[in-house]
């Protein structure tokens, strides 16, 4: 049972790192970014390729860096020019980017499933209450906690973090105080994309790499974001852990219904609290 719960936290951790990027981007740009799944998948493939040549850690850094740059480009070329358009337009464009990225990856890397080995030092197994558990999975949980802690510290106590929080709720008033919200938006999209790269690469030793891996996890990330309350970082954290557990228990106990369970949870939470977990019922 302990092992099952830990596995739930591993998936929850991955979901959190991915979903918090969506929350950041939605907060500043008001964009429902379907391309995020594509960024996750691209991050996994870039991480995989560089890691095969130069080792896991170089692959991780490379993937995060490339995705951050891609985030800035996407903000410049897509989000900013479209910010005054109907949100549905931007959403469709990001969906298009997802499809393009999937085909691009299929063309470059092929359709076959690929797997990446965990880095040396984290490839062992430890015994937990009589069962074996991969060390790498514990490291993923630790990393998710680290990302959550780091992000929350950055948002709570840095000047830029304050500007990000303010611009997420009222971009015009924030800009009126002298904040360049355009540049701030680009920074935040870069961070969101970098986090997608991070979670893609750390997912590479856990999940089989395939061009469609992004679309699968994207659905669960959206469930996390909506359940957590769209703009809430704490809400996303709690929701990710919850969905991670449910997903995993579902896979073990009711495999046929596993993919439906997170959606059912989302519906129940929204009936109970229409604005998500983080907001008080009005």
């Amino acid at each position, binding site marked *: 049972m302990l092992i099952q719960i830990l596995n739930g936290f591993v998936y929850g951790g991955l979901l959190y790192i991915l979903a918090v990027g969506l929350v950041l981007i939605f907060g500043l740009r008001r964009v429902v970014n379907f391309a995020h799944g594509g960024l996750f998948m691209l991050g996994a493939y870039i991480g995989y390729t560089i890691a095969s040549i130069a080792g896991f850690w170089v692959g991780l850094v490379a993937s995060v860096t490339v995705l951050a740059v891609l985030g800035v480009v996407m903000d410049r070329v897509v989000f900013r020019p479209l910010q005054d358009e109907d949100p549905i337009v931007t959403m469709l464009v990001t969906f298009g980017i997802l499809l393009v990225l999937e085909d691009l990856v299929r063309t470059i890397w092929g359709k076959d499933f690929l797997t990446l080995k965990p880095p040396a030092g984290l490839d062992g197994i430890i015994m937990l209450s009589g069962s074996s558990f991969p060390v790498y999975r514990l490291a993923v949980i630790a990393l998710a906690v680290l990302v959550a802690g780091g992000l929350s510290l950055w948002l709570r106590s840095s*000047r830029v973090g*304050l*500007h990000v*929080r*303010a611009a*997420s*709720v*009222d971009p*015009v*008033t*924030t*800009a*009126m*105080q*002298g*904040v*360049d*919200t*355009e540049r701030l938006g680009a920074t935040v999209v870069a961070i969101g994309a970098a986090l997608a790269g991070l979670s893609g690469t750390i997912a590479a030793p856990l999940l089989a790499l395939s061009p469609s891996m992004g679309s699968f996890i994207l659905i669960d990330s959206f469930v996390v974001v909506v359940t957590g309350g769209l703009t809430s970082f704490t809400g996303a954290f709690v929701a990710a852990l919850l969905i991670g557990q449910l997903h995993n228990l579902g896979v073990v106990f009711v495999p046929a219904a596993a993919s439906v369970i997170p959606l059912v949870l989302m519906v129940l939470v929204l009936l109970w609290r229409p604005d998500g977990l983080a907001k008080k019922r009005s």
Partner: protein
Amino acid sequence: MNLLMLRDVDAFYAQAQVLHGVSLEIGKGERVAILGRNGVGKTTIVNAMLGIASVRGGSISFGAETPRRLRHFTAARLGVAVVPQGRRIVPGLTVRENLLLGAATERPGPWNCEAVFGLFPVLRERAEIPGPSLSGGQQQMLAIGRALMANPDLLVLDEPSEGLAPVIVDELADTLVRLSAAGTSILLIEQNFSLVHRVAERYYVLSKGTIVESGSLAGLSVEVLKKHIAV
């Protein structure tokens, strides 16, 4: 040198023109009011400065600078801070965080959280509570405090008396006069004459998007008042 100068400004929302050739100027140490009824374009003057309404004719200068493109953040960075209509306290931030947001320009000057708490002691007591849970009068103090955090040369207030009890409006008038004595110029956009006559020395009257009268407040006639604002 003028702190703020509008020269023949034509301002639009989409295709609708709201301001027609508006010119006005506010110099150092001045306390100026813009009067006018609802819907004549008073707030559009502020929105034009902030790049919210689009300026398609004329120019707006802040101090020595005449920016070619007005962005939301331009005015604050050039020393003109706005206390917007409806106060626009940012939800989700505490009172202190709302103040710190005002310091985004990093302009040097005397104002910081401590100085604002000195001016409005009640904000110190409530520094860690969410900004929107303050009363209307306290929110107005917070909005003024936040604007002061930018260390502006000119404070622009858009309908600050809106929704405030008369006794609070009197306090507001005293505060504005004190701020001006301490070196911050004031542009008051108002239709509440009891606030205007306590604060302003000079006025402009706006009607249908055009300046129709201006002069010193002492010379403002009852006829003009009756015609252009409700007393």
